[in-house]
């Protein structure tokens, strides 16, 4: 196996252009090292951790700029993330063990494009965007279109994610991230549901609703039909029930060793209901009538 430690983004991009499909990018390594030990060694490993300027978390106007090499622990311990993006904070907090959070990077969690990637459903409801670098130039892409399948993203084999731009949610909005797993944070999510709602000025109706579902489709998804059903309405018991069932119908989970597809659908329904109930109460001060 060849091994490279590029010192600059340009150097890394030309290595990826040259080695293409053979090359595997490594940052924290918490997933890639397991692949090397249990699956197969890539032809060449490109370690991007020595590239400067890819870390850090800063406020940038109305959004937060998170460097792709920021660790999950950096995200979890950032007071900016905790104050401004509690939905993302929650997913970083429920992310495996302290040892893993100290090593794993947010860029790695995103580029791995696992449907169950902990931060992905929160990033979808926050309408975050990625800055993608290629040897031909840079582009910004919303994460809504970035994920193309398990392990597949619009980076292909030649691009690198350099930063993540997360806009602050609207004033008065409330969000939650709910994870279902057998052994709490240590386990990979069977289902993850992120809900972000913004009430109207009178706090009577849902002006904006965003529901992100993780681990229940080939990529993390937004439950867009459910969102459309809820938008502009007041949350009633009947509507809550209908919305939760619709979110479950929008999911297309597989059965695997962690749970059956049928069970995952039940959990999507339960967590969507719980997430909407909690955020509605928090945002409007009212019970679901």
């Amino acid at each position, binding site marked *: 196996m060849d091994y490279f430690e590029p010192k600059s983004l340009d150097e890394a991009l030309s290595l990826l252009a040259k080695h293409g499909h053979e090359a595997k990018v490594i940052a924290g*390594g918490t997933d890639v090292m397991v692949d090397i*030990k249990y699956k197969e060694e890539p032809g060449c490993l490109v370690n991007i951790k020595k590239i400067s300027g890819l870390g850090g978390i800063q406020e940038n106007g109305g959004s937060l700029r998170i460097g792709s090499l920021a660790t999950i622990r950096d995200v979890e311990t950032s007071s900016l993330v905790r104050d401004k993006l509690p939905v993302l904070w929650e997913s970083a907090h429920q992310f495996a063990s302290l040892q893993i959070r100290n090593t794993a990077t947010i860029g790695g969690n995103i580029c791995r494009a696992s449907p169950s990637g902990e931060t992905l459903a929160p990033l979808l409801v926050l309408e975050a965007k990625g800055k993608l670098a290629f040897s031909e130039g840079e582009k910004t892409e919303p994460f809504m279109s970035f994920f193309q399948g398990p392990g597949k993203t619009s980076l292909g084999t030649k691009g690198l994610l350099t930063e993540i731009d997360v806009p602050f949610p609207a004033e008065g909005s409330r969000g939650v991230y709910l994870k279902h797993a057998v052994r709490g*944070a240590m386990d990979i999510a069977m289902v993850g549901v992120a809900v972000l709602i913004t009430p109207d000025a009178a706090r009577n109706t849902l002006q904006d609703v965003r529901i992100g579902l993780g681990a229940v489709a080939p990529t993390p998804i937004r439950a867009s039909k459910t969102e459309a059903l809820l938008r502009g309405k007041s949350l009633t018991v009947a509507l809550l029930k209908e919305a939760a069932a619709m979110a479950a119908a929008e999911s297309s989970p597989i059965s695997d060793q962690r749970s059956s597809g049928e069970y995952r659908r039940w959990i999507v329904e339960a967590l969507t209901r719980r997430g909407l109930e909690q955020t509605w109460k928090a945002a409007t001060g009212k019970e679901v009538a």
Partner: protein
Amino acid sequence: MSVTINTKINGQPISASAEASTSLLEFLRDTLEMKGSKLCCNTGECGACTVIYNGRPINSCVTLAADANGAEITTIEGLADGDKLHPVQQAFIDTGAVQCGYCTPGYIISVKALLDRTTKPTAEDIEEAVSGNICRCTGYNKIVDAIHLAADRIAGRA
């Protein structure tokens, strides 16, 4: 392809070569013959391989050995001062927090990292610090007792 790794382990500068795909755990155990850090799940789930990397506890089994270049690493071998055990090691013995012992080096490293951060850990701090370490023998209560005892001794409360 072989890489040269210049690092500092338990305060000692070390230079050695290893295959590029080597994990930090394999580098410690097989290249440097330091067998204190344990190989168990080899996937970053059980914590038996925990070492302190630039002040933070990490799983050495899912860390690239090449990332040790320029880093400061503390392993279980670096805790005792001659025959005098580190307070965390002594507390594990005194409370009976050890049975088969395989997970113990990883626990002691995680607890040392915790007590380097604070000598007044809350129940939540303790749970967070060792949630990535699995013990199949003790049932955890005695480990929590050991953490409290070590914290009290380090802070001079016991």
